[in-house]
């Protein structure tokens, strides 16, 4: 089916036929065929766990397929290892940044670009120059000498992008490169990707944001449960058709309507600051039933603010009042006891414990509530876990499955379940739908709305502008660690962008 659509007379850069791959009892790919032409941006979409990452990992040599064949530049390759793939001109941005935390940015880039030879001189100045040049190219304000462990998630993502773009590869695989990027970086990336396409590079682009697909892709392949549902030129399709192919049913792309009543004040911050976190003088109020979107550029300090509220980096100036009482939060335990829940941004490291069963993951934050006197009760735990798995439609073989057997989106749901299980009063969500497929995203949005309606106060950090605009009752914009503006529900994308860039002061005072 794919082949019928390939451009005749041209050898595809990459051609997969009937590739299968399974992990234990899970079939991630069930005979997928796929091709990539030179000078093409080929979007790959599908629900969480559809097998997109698995597919590109096979192409990148990170996984070996169980069966099926791979042709690159028309030649069949067997034994594809990461280094073989590199030598064949394949570069990959993995969904999860895979950098070396202890090495500098420059060296990280160099290790991805230089030829792998055991005994070769290292040219430090060249490495550094190259890094500076690439970082400048993608417009990342990162020093090449910082260690990657000191970078935030989005910054790491930018370094990954720099690695891929600098590699002179003919085939570039991008697995949700924009998941944690804001609009500005995304635009820049698109410009670069288009240039590459014009140079004849083939790009596989995975994203859950359909608008991106329509903005840059030439063709799109939809995966569903490990099977390809076909490839179509982007011009011949529309979002709702794609969604239907992806999820198998109609999903509204509209955000669920706001219907909650504002209740009493839940959280108010007065001049809150934390030197270590780089957050200064935040004054913000949040009522029960209200969803406040918190946005800004990468590194604006949104995550840091959340960490301050959750007691991971306690505040050193200002005051926090919760339900009308002044409180001091010095540890996550304090925060949980006060009814604050924080869904962290990096789900693999912070959100779920990958090697623990789902049931343990889900109850992990609510030990105090569920298990008085610290005695575990397995039935309580099991029932609760099963309830959440059902409520949030987590795709898994059961509550005893380990966290790492789930796809990213499903992990995110488990992470959310953990916090809902604490019965919080204030829910802080950090990029709640990052890397989540359309279907699940819509469900999560509905859940957030429902929670708000039930009287929860929600602080939603997000880089996804439509999401922020569609979900928030008010929008707080951070810039450089301070509150740049608080915008009302009816504001426009333009207002948000200019506030986060600091172009115009048009905020409505706090």
């Amino acid at each position, binding site marked *: 089916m794919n082949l019928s659509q390939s451009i005749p007379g041209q050898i595809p850069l990459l051609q997969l036929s009937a590739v299968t791959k399974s992990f234990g009892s899970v079939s991630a790919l069930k005979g997928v065929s796929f091709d990539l032409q030179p000078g093409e941006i080929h979007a790959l979409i599908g629900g969480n766990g559809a097998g997109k990452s698995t597919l590109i990992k096979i192409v990148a040599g990170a996984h070996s397929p169980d069966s099926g064949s791979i042709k690159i530049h028309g030649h069949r390759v067997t034994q594809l290892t990461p280094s073989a793939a590199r030598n064949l001109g394949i570069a990959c941005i993995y969904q999860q940044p895979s950098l070396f935390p202890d090495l500098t940015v420059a060296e990280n880039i160099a290790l991805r670009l230089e030829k792998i030879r055991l005994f070769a001189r290292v040219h430090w100045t060249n490495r550094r120059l190259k890094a500076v040049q690439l970082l400048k190219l993608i417009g990342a304000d990162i020093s090449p000498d910082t260690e990657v462990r000191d970078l935030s998630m989005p910054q790491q993502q930018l370094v990954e992008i720099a690695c891929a773009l600098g590699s002179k590869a003919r085939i570039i695989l991008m697995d949700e490169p924009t998941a944690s990027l804001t609009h500005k970086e995304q635009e820049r990336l698109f410009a670069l990707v288009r240039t590459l396409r014009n140079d004849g590079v083939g790009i596989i682009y995975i994203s859950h944001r359909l608008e991106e697909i329509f903005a840059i892709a030439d063709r799109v392949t939809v995966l569903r449960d490990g099977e390809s549902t076909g490839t179509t030129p982007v011009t011949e399709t529309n979002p709702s058709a794609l969604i239907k192919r992806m999820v198998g049913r109609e999903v509204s792309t509209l955000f669920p309507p706001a219907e909650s009543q504002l209740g009493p004040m839940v959280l108010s911050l007065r001049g809150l600051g934390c030197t270590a976190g780089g957050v200064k003088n935040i004054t913000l109020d949040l009522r029960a039933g209200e969803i406040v979107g918190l946005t800004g550029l990468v590194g604006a300090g949104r995550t840091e603010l959340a960490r301050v509220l959750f007691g991971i980096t306690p505040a050193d100036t200002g005051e926090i009042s919760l339900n009308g009482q002044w409180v001091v939060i010095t*540890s996550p335990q304090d925060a949980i006891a006060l009814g604050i829940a924080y869904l962290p941004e990096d789900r693999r490291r912070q*959100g779920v414990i990958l*090697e*623990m069963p789902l049931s343990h993951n889900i109850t*992990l*934050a609510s030990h105090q509530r569920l298990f008085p006197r610290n005695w*575990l009760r397995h039935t309580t735990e099991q029932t609760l876990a099963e309830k959440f798995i059902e409520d949030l439609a987590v795709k898994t073989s059961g509550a005893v499955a380990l966290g790492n057997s789930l796809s990213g989106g499903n992990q995110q749901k488990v992470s959310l379940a953990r916090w809902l299980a604490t019965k919080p009063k204030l829910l802080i969500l950090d990029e709640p739908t990052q890397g989540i497929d359309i279907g699940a995203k819509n469900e999560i949005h509905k859940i957030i709305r429902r929670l708000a309606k039930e009287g929860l106060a929600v602080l939603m950090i997000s880089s996804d502008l439509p999401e922020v605009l569609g979900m928030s009752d008010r929008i707080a914009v951070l810039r450089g660690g301070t509150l740049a503006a608080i915008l009302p529900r009816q504001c426009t994308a333009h207002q948000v962008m200019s506030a986060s860039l600091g172009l115009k002061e048009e905020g409505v005072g706090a």
Partner: protein
Amino acid sequence: MKPQQLTRIWPQHETVLLLFIIAEVTYFSLFGRRFCTVDNFTNIVRHSLEIGLLALVMTPIILTAGIDLSVGSTLGLCAVLFGKLWRDAGLDPWLAQICTIGIGGLCGACNALLIAQMKLPPLIVTLATFSLFRGLAEAITQGVDAFTDFPESFLFLGSGQLGQLPIQAWILSAAAIGVWLLVHRTTFGRCFRAIGFSPEGALYAGLPVRRQLALVYVLAGLVAGLASLTYTARFGTAKADAGTGYELFAITAVVLGGTRIFGGVGSVHGTLLGVATLAILNNGLSRLPNLMNIASELSGIVTGVLLLLALTASALPHWLKANQK
């Protein structure tokens, strides 16, 4: 056979150990001299108490992906201080015993402070206190001093019998049940595993990471203090070299028992089986007629080989799976 099937039918680590123990006992009963006697099993239990205790408390530590190399030295320091308290400070033996356990706790707290509070790596911290505590024991006694002639009431802790069983059996059972409940039935155990799998994940889940870490090291100290008492009582003497090398035996038993050294995975019953395997092996080898003269060396070698085999066996299905393609 496909590796996947292999993984499925590959028995649990604990089961393998249990089978191994049965095989050991059968073999030694058949070929060993007077192996299968009540007296001998009593001996085995009596001799494995201290290492058993240390291995028990090492289990939660390793579950948190930590390690404690200082338990043997803590035992030595406690033994010496117990002697000091009882003989030189003239404390009532009971009071001295309680103080000794407290001192053990203090040693543990010292590790806990550095590991949990200052976030220093456990391997290095306990390597330093390994040297420090032993050194203190030597400095206090100038190496020379040995404490003896303890009262009969105290020596009961080492040689007494309660019912048909030696006192050691009771202490070990009590400790095993305690630690088992802690690790397998309480939220503490859950926290240890979470920390072992991912300290950052545990922190973001709002678990009291520092408190839990402190807990396991203090517990190890307290139990090392207790072990110093049973050791002194069994042996009748307290000297600065008490418990030398016990940390390695304890770690060996824990790892043999299936606890993953990187944390998260493991069980207390596995540890007990590990202790039993080693103790029986040690004892049985010295009863095989042709090997009696090299039993000590041999038991070291066999322990090492066993450790390698156990690990290899547990890694084999993964390895096959990974290399099949």
